[in-house]
């Protein structure tokens, strides 16, 4: 399935979780999210947990903590 992270399309196995697609996008970004230095939000601007289960077509954006983009 295809998931977008920061606008980049990532191909990932079905049944993947947020942390899997984030790891494939950038392991360093995943580490920052794990350390609560960054947060990952869905296309609506809501924070999602790293174990959240993915469906194809979802989009995520990585933010600095405390600086989420305005919601669509």
């Amino acid at each position, binding site marked *: 399935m295809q998931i977008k992270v920061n606008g980049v399309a990532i191909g990932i196995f079905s049944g993947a979780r947020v942390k899997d697609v984030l790891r494939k996008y950038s392991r360093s970004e995943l580490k920052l999210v794990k350390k609560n230095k960054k947060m990952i939000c869905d296309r*609506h601007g809501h924070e999602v*947990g790293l*174990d959240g289960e993915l469906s194809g077509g979802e989009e995520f954006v990585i933010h600095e903590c405390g600086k989420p983009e305005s919601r669509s």
Partner: protein
Amino acid sequence: MRRALTTGPVALRLLLSLSALFALQSCASAPAPLAQAQPQPTESRIVIFHSNDIHGKIDNFAKVAAIVDAERKGGADVFYFCAGDNFTGNPVIDQYDPPGEPILALLNRLGVNLMCPGNHEFDYGLDNLRKFEAEGRFSLISANIEALPGILPLLRPSAVLTTRSGIKIAVFGLIQVEAGNGLPSTHPDKVKGLRFSYPFARAMEMKKLRAGNDVLIGLTHIGYDQDLLLAGMMPELDVIIGGHSHTGVDPAEMANGVLVAQAGSDNRYLGRLELLVRNGRVIKKKGTLIDLKGPMAEAADVKEMIVRFNQNPAFARVIATAPFAIEGNDALGCLMTDAMRWAHGLDIAFQNGGGIRLNRLSEKITLKDVYTLDPFGNQVVEIAMNAEEIRSLIAVSFAKGHDIDLQVSGITYVVRTDSDWHIQEILLRAPDGSPLPEDRIYKVGVSSYVASSYNFVHKDPGRALNAITADALIRFLEGGPDLSVYRGIQRAYQDPPALRTRY
């Protein structure tokens, strides 16, 4: 519904409690804040707490209990709903004997009223869920699960709760199903005897609940995007309380006039909804998340329960006895990959060296040893691969450190390099030592870590098998395999051999 809710004359208490109502603010675009509205005698304030995707993370339940207990003393009608996936994600709790016991005891103590099963509610098996259903002082609801007789006898599509002033709250449940197989994301063997339908069709049938009830709520485990679609299709709903996508929706969002809420995951937040009902309809509604991080009041009795559950005696249980200690990445990796291949019917399985977190398993192997050896909760991912793609995986792994990284079951392999560790060829051999047939497609198992972080060539994107790697090893060891084969075992070779020692 098994939990009787009190009804009766409460006008005086309601009037008293309505003072708190003035703090309520609507997330709807109301012309005047609720705080300025004059409460009418026919109005009632309802507070609904909600959790989802707890995944065995029980530590914050003492804080949750303190919050919920305090609210119940405040005079409002207070309910607590769970939107699925209480199980799986914390080995100490997952391996409790009987499975799920800590979650059951805690949800009962918290006074949970309703729960919709999530896909991980089936992970401990239907016998366990039936026990959970029977002993829980809450109702399980799901409109898109149909159980054969005797499987989940108390499961209902919906339930109606009644406040003390007689307001009727109809709630229906929904569970996520995968587009491919029409099943929730759990191992198919775990849901035999259950039939699942796609959630939206059954949700439309629930519109009938609007008649005769004052409040209509969808308690779902379908993910936030699907909740928004549901809201778009079903304006009859007052509220959707969701789960599955681990989304922290704060404040709850209004979509098509439906308030859509979800409380993150792992017990990091407690969701709190307030509804103001007047003359049989919801006139104000809002939802926020209570962040459970940091110090706050805790219920002492619940804290004691949590301490007790975290000292899970089952964790020290010996699940297998080996004739000798199993030592080193080669032996431990062979054991782990044999388990993965056996548990999931794979042709070949790989285990990366960094995922082997012990150097030695002593003769008496406990559950704790397994989770120390394999602590990451990685899923098993199956990928259909040909021999060339398998070589690509091995090559990528070798390039990480010019050394053997992947342990293997189902084949042996040799990485031949020049003196600068540049790969010259990778020989793949079947278990009998013959060359691995090049014209076949193999069912290859890797961890979700390898599948997502090793950039190798494979046409098939793969699929998670809804099982974690440590569980495969536990099942394998509990099956009593011959562990004597792991003395001095090696299946992955480097030629010429690496000069440095890896462990």
